[in-house]
């Protein structure tokens, strides 16, 4: 039993965080212990829980429970979800849809970053140009004001665009991991 638990822990380490690993091991240990208490043979019970199958089955469930409060976790869940979808033939169309949506959201984020950079660039050039033309002080102030409004609007649009795509990426993970779970339960 201990050997099996260690083998499971070793496989789970590649995919899950420490607290998730403990949760999975605890869950399966409890189920196995219940069956052993009912007098079933240990080898037969352990054979009915292939480690690779456990890892695959639990991935969807664990991903859907994650908080996704940092980009690294989102990136990890996205990759894992894509792998599950692509490794199950019946889910490949879903994988394509997921990938397409990820590309759309990625493009949205790139637009946000481009807006952010171009906003700063336009503000700098506009401010430098301001010192090269001779106009009344209040006109310079007005143009500087417009440049400030311009950069603020561009940066705010960029910020909320990135926030929106980040939020939608999190929602996609929840949605697709639930679909994966449902399909797993149906099987």
């Amino acid at each position, binding site marked *: 039993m201990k050997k099996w638990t260690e083998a499971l822990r070793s496989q789970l380490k590649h995919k899950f965080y420490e607290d998730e690993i403990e949760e999975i091991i605890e869950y399966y240990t409890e189920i196995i212990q219940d069956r052993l208490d009912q007098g079933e043979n240990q080898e037969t019970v352990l054979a009915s829980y292939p480690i690779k199958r456990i890892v695959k089955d639990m991935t969807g469930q664990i991903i859907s429970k994650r908080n996704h409060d940092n980009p690294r976790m989102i990136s990890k869940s996205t990759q894992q979800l894509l792998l599950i979808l692509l490794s199950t033939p019946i889910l490949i169309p879903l994988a394509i849809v997921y990938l397409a949506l990820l590309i759309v959201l990625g493009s949205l984020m790139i637009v946000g970053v481009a807006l952010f950079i171009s906003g700063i660039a*336009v503000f700098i*050039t506009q401010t430098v140009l301001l010192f090269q033309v001779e*106009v009344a002080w*209040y006109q310079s102030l*007005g*143009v500087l004001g417009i440049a*400030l409004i311009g950069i603020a609007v561009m940066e705010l649009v960029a910020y909320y665009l990135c926030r929106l795509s980040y939020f939608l990426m999190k929602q996609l993970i929840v949605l697709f991991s639930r679909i994966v779970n449902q399909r797993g339960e149906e099987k």
Partner: protein
Amino acid sequence: MKIFKFTIYGFLVLGITFTVIAFIYGMKIEDVLAYFNDDAAYELVETDPITTQLEEITVQTQIRIIEINYTNDIELTYQYHQREGEIWEIEITDTSLTISQREPLRLLSGLRHASLKVRTIQINIPITWNLTLDIKTTTGSISIEGTSSIEVPNLKAHATTGSIRLKNITTNNLEVKTSTGSVNIENVSADTADLRTSTGTVRIKNSNLDQLNVKVSTGDIRVEGLVFESVTLQASTGDIRITDISIENTTLQFNTNTGHIRLNEQTVSKDYSVVFGGNKQLTLKTNTGNITVKTRN
């Protein structure tokens, strides 16, 4: 992130305050527009008229609108505005005029822009001159218009970002290409015509194009009153609509993958093919768009 948002909202408040103060002290909307207008940096270049008849005009620009008109004058005139640092090369031989414009690398261009007027090259050609035209611009539109049906041996018009408009012209070979602009052809006659655009719409009206080939990616193709021998119109996601056309003695081939095909208000199959005899050919293909054909009564 809080500091970032605080800074940005600070910029916004500061910007509004500065602008309000500026307006209180006498700044006007015209002052703002004048500040962002870059016309003063451009200078009109005086050019001598060309009196000897040429055979060819070649124009190649990076950022210019090109307008070619035919006039009743007996000499060719052209004018353009030049900005400091721009590279202009004008070459005049006994048979040709070549105009080329290149932009220098500008790091501090800001938001200042010149008006359309100063960004236009205007060429006026006498209506009696039969010139081959080879016109290319990277950013800007091209317009070639004759007052009556003008004879141009060969006509090439290429733009990367800009629309192309041709009106009242007769030519042997017509080649029109643009990436992100539309193509408008009206009252044009050509033996062969090759029209391409990626995201724009192609419109052809009252024209006589014997061998016509049109390729569009995401735009539509609209044809009205076309006389032809062989036509191939291809769109990827756009619609194809042809009206006021004769299909007598014509082999028809219409194909769409996910759209609908309507021939004179009748819906036909997605892969429609019919031979009415004769040598004329009308081939229409689109991937996800619709095809509509209305023949002349």
